[in-house]
């Protein structure tokens, strides 16, 4: 990177790239690369040791292959595990330079132009953007004692909190991708809400993958102390033009006594083109721990992007009377594949969980709901309700439901139901009779199908998500 750009990058006080230079770590995964990452980020020794321990573990782990969507083998030695954002010169300078298709998408999303600029990284990078959002309201947040910053910053400023909770929900001995993330994670968000505080605004982050040949490994850690409440939004709404790329993030949530965390995701990574070329492999580990009594964790996700989505946001209901919720809409079109669902692990007494999953597959895509409800012998008087509905559009796509139900407690109830259907001719006919074109009609019907989940999203996201649903299914009718 030349001097000028280096200075430019340095200007962003809260961006994680302040201490990054445009030097990629050598390709490949080894101890030296991990040491390089840790050194670049000026991490304390305990964190480096922690990373190395994860790396040791990774050497004995085997990449899982039980999932439904198969993918060509990833050469982990051919990836960059650390890379600075591309220099701004390489980015499109004006809106006109952008792919017109991209602009069209934004127009349909109804995002105002200046926001489009932000999202496309014309003025600021999307990841920078997320931090700057935080900066905007920094005063308000500080007043309440809420910490919202990048995880690298948190490692420097709040090492005790990070040390205590990092890896407490997803240990370094977890599955392959989670352990890989533990070894090489580069950045992510950190949120701490102190005791009794109700976070006055939605916290949000936009993620974005920059360079090619890199893996994206963020780590998010959210801690809600006793009696607090936080709603966190994660947007991956920046479409990319890159080849197949790995995105293996870890998200850990910890809710202490009487705390509540609401985590919403609108994921719209680049899904690959119409022939299934390119796109993101979205292999994310998300897990929430209801550690305290009366705590609540709620996951809401709208998954429309990625070539392959493979994730199971889970809740471990450890505290008595804790509640876990999972609301999901997953849409696959063209050659997209998704294997997603949740795990509800009931450990405490009187724990409750609710799962609402809506899957829509169109084109040549394949969609799987895979979920686990496990009520342990001690989880007396627990309850689960699961509903998975699938909608098929066309006869070249697939929709699958694979629930695992384990009830080991005689005082607990589990109810599960699933249906698979298609949009009926009658519904389409009715809408078209009222003047809608077939695409609008499908959009309307699908939105109705998803309504239960959409209404769980915070306002601003709900509108965006609703439009995304329509866009994702474009070209699948007729």
């Amino acid at each position, binding site marked *: 990177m030349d001097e000028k750009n280096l200075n430019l990058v340095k200007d962003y006080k809260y961006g994680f790239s302040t201490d990054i230079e445009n030097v990629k770590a050598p390709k490949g995964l080894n101890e030296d690369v991990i040491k390089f990452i840790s050194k670049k980020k000026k991490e304390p020794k305990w964190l480096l040791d922690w990373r190395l321990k994860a790396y040791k573990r990774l050497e004995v782990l085997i990449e899982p292959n*039980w999932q439904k969507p198969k993918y060509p083998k990833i050469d982990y030695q051919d990836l960059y595990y650390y890379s600075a954002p591309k220099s701004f010169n390489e980015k499109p300078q004006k809106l006109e330079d952008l792919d017109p298709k991209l602009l069209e998408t934004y127009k349909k999303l109804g995002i105002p132009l200046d926001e489009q600029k932000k999202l496309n990284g014309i003025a600021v990078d999307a990841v920078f953007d997320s931090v700057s959002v935080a900066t905007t309201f920094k005063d308000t947040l500080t007043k309440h004692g809420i910490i919202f910053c990048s995880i690298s910053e948190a490692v420097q400023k709040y090492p005790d909190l990070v040390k205590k909770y990092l890896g407490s929900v997803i240990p370094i001995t977890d599955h392959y991708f989670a352990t890989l993330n533990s070894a090489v994670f580069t950045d992510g968000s950190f949120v701490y809400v102190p005791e009794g505080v109700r976070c006055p605004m939605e916290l949000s982050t936009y993620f974005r993958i920059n360079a090619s040949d890199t893996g994206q490994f963020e780590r998010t850690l959210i801690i809600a102390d006793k009696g607090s409440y936080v709603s966190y939004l994660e947007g991956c709404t920046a479409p990319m033009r890159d080849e197949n790329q790995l995105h293996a993030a870890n998200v850990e949530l910890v809710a202490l006594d009487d705390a509540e965390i609401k985590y919403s995701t609108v994921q719209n990574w680049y899904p690959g083109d119409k022939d299934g070329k390119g796109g993101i492999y979205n292999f994310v580990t998300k897990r929430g721990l209801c550690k305290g009594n009366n705590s609540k964790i709620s996951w809401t996700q709208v998954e429309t992007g990625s070539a392959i989505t493979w994730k199971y946001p889970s809740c471990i209901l450890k505290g008595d009377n804790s509640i876990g919720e999972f609301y999901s809409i997953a849409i696959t079109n063209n050659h997209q594949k998704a294997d997603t669902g949740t795990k509800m692990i009931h450990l405490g007494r009187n724990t409750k969980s609710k799962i609402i999953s809506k899957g829509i597959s169109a084109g040549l895509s394949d969609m799987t709901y895979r979920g686990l409800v496990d009520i342990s*012998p001690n989880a007396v008087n627990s309850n689960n309700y699961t509903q998975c509905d*699938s909608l*098929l*559009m*066309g*006869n*070249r*796509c*697939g*929709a*699958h*439901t*694979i*629930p*695992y*139900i*384990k*009830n*080991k*407690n*005689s*005082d*607990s*109830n*589990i*109810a*599960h*139901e*699933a*249906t*698979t*259907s*298609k949009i009926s001719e009658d519904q389409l006919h009715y809408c078209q009779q009222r003047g809608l074109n077939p695409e609008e009609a499908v959009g309307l019907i699908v939105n109705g199908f998803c309504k239960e989940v959409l209404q769980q999203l915070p306002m601003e996201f709900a509108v965006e998500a609703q439009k995304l649903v329509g866009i994702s299914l474009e070209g699948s009718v007729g």
Partner: protein
Amino acid sequence: MENKIKTDFEKAFKNFPLKEELDFKKNNLENFIKKGFPGKKMESWKFSDLNQIINKNLGELNFYTDHVQKNLIDTSLIIKNFEHNKIVFINGKIEEIDFNFEEKDKIQVSKGLSNQINSFKGNSLLSLNNAFCKNFYNITIKTNYSMKKPLIIYHMINKDISLTTVNSQLSFYLEKNSLLKIIDIYDEKSEKNFINTFYNFSLKENAILKNFKIDNSQNNNIKYSFNNIEQEQNTISETFILSNGSKFLKNEINCNLKGKYSSAFINGIFSLNTDKHHEIRTSVNHLVENTKSYQLIKSVLEDKSKSAYQGKIYVNPEAQKTDGYQLSKCILLDKNTEFNAKPELEIYADDVKCSHGSASGSLSEDSIFYLRSRGLNYKQAKKLLIRGFFLDVIEKITDEEVKNYIKEIMEFN
């Protein structure tokens, strides 16, 4: 185990005359030795680790049974409720085939390899069965013939057999427009054996198959039963499973709906107590359009028992207008009971009606209260509720004689 199984195989088939059959057996033996008993690492054995169950309950097994002397049939075990044809297995060997109630030329019994059993290479227990099964019998029901009386297959095992694997196998061919009713009755005086049964059914146009599998006598054996059903146009298959007596029992049904307007019905009851562990695994494959399947499994668990249901509905891209339904329900009566379910849908066609449901929990306190307010004591109320719960499944049986017989053995009359 490897040496043991090889010497037992040598002993069992020393002077075996048919070369083709022997080669087939040897291939299967090798396959079994390579794979061994299935464990929980295999997805289909996730909820029941057979390898561990055998090690814990049985230990080292024998694979050889001496069939030299003819075993006498214990006639006290023969059912007297209704007239029936019978096939009697004793220690895995057929001792009697009796179709006295049927027209002679309408039923054909022959020996030899069935041409369909090769298609389950992944199933090591089937390989074990193929390797050690004494004789391969094929039973054909001729065109347009409906059997007058049901066929009861008795699976009997003598007292002197212990720690042994007992393998038996039968293939049935139902020609066009034929009807066959089979009742399987397991009755054994022995303990601690591994009993492995395999049936293959091939249904031609308009044929009807009814299979009732009754495992009611209390015993400490480990059992595995596999039914493969191939169905052509307009055929109907009905399978009913009563899973109750054995220490461990896994019933597996694989059903291929290959012809239009074919339908499959699978109904099952688990009524378990004391440390028992039973499983039903079904896989219904809708391969062409306009096919139908219905599955209903109900389970009542007492005293440390465990039941599992893995049901899969597969819908091929060509199988439009499929109607598939699955429902599993469980009542857990005691602490330490466990119910596991994996109701799976794999769907590749859009114009289908597929749904499944699964519910598990305790007896409804409200219902108990209602009944007690009407003068029943707790025990009576519980019994009545369970009876109602099970009758829902039993009433689905389309054969009156069998329905009454099952009600009788479940003490519901």
